[in-house]
């Protein structure tokens, strides 16, 4: 008899757990609303995007591997000739500058977030002022380059020569990748100059601060900036020979 009761209690507990799990799941799905209402074409497209983005990640990892190999081969074939070694070093430096390798160095880190002021606490404020916009990020990045930054990233996206900062509804796209607040901007350069340029009187940060945005600027002894997650290729521009 006692065993029966024990068994019964176990059953009840199990079904309770299951029901709870199902309920949580249902809530998650209904929160995403659209997931449930997708047409079959939409879900097919979504599947394809997921598949190709996964393939992209895999290929990118492979590319990193062969790029390392290339560097080794290059080093091997230039090791006993100083003239060739100089050329090799020039290639390395340009890969750094282009954003095709991960880099480290001294610099600054800026964390930029939307304001926590609301129209409830201040009804006369312009709601748009309380958000970080594409133009704000452009200004911060530009100010960093004015102060001699050598490498910059926004939420892990390396800023390269073709990097655009675009507004896309309520998110921002950098290198075509969607990112959202808080924004972490890392820059390598001379820390005093970088932070001085940003926080000078009438400068970029002062204007952002006046709007109530949350800003955290810190100098860094060693900061890591990732490489650009793609390939850089020209399709229209070609070199002018004998210009």
């Amino acid at each position, binding site marked *: 008899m006692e065993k029966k009761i024990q068994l019964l209690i176990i059953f009840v507990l199990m079904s309770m757990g299951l029901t709870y799990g199902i309920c949580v799941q249902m809530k998650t799905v209904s929160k995403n609303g659209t997931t449930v209402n997708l047409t079959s074409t939409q879900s097919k497209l979504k599947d394809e995007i*997921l598949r190709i983005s996964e393939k992209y990640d895999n290929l990118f990892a492979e590319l990193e591997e062969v790029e390392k190999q290339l560097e080794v081969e290059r080093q091997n074939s230039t090791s006993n000739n100083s003239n060739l070694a100089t050329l090799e070093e020039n290639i390395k*430096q340009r890969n750094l500058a282009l954003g095709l390798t991960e880099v480290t160095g001294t610099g600054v880190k800026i964390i930029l977030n939307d304001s926590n002021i609301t129209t409830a606490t201040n009804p006369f404020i312009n709601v748009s002022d309380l958000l970080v916009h594409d133009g704000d990020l452009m200004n911060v990045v530009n100010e960093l380059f004015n102060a001699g930054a050598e490498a910059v990233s926004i939420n892990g996206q390396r800023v390269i020569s073709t990097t655009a900062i675009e507004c896309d509804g309520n998110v921002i796209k950098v290198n075509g990748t969607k990112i959202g607040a808080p924004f972490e901007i890392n820059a390598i350069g001379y820390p005093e100059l970088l932070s001085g340029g940003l926080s000078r009187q009438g400068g970029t940060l002062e204007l952002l601060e006046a709007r109530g945005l949350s800003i955290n600027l810190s100098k860094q002894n060693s900061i890591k900036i990732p490489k650009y997650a*793609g390939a850089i*290729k020209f399709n229209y521009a070609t070199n002018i020979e004998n210009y």
Partner: protein
Amino acid sequence: MKKEKIVMAVTIGISAFILVAIIFMQFKVVEKTDRISIDAMTESDLRSELISWREKYDELQLQYQDTLVKIQEYKEEYKSDEETEKLLENELTELKTLLGETNVHGQGIIITINEGNLQNDKINYEDLLYIVNELKAAGAEAISINDNRVINRTGIYTIGTESGFIKIDGKRILAPYIIKAIGNQTYLEGALLGNGGYVDELRKWGFEIQIERNDDVKIDAYSNSLSNKYMK
């Protein structure tokens, strides 16, 4: 009797386990789709997202093949130093081109901005920044402002306030501002005009702006020296 009970308990246990596993798998799927934030996209958004992923993938594939070829070239035995030097020079030129250290030409557009007789409004650094950004978004491969090449670490600023002038990478420039860009002409022009395009915006303020399509835009190399002092 007892055996039957055990069998029942085990069966129920197994089915419960499977259910829980399925629930967790489901959680994971939901999380993953969220990460890429494609849930709320319309069909046409999804299509363009897919196209851009395919383009990015193809470019990466090319880069991959390219790298393999280079590795093979370096590996070849009985190669003289002259041949190695040639390989290195080729690679270096390629990188210099991408960085903006060479003179380039190609199809593109030329934008001319006149301040005209506007009393109070002048072009400032931010206007140029916005235009450059839109050109980049449209895939510009090379850009210059008054013949100063814009590279990946170019900075633009205004000295002083109202009566100030603009400096690009430390060089002073004056109106009229002539911005050259190499890339797909339709994309480049399209990005500046129409819905939210910045040239349209400036025209509303009264600036005189011409956009000329040119099949052979020439853009000079970056003239300052480039060095990496702080990054490794």
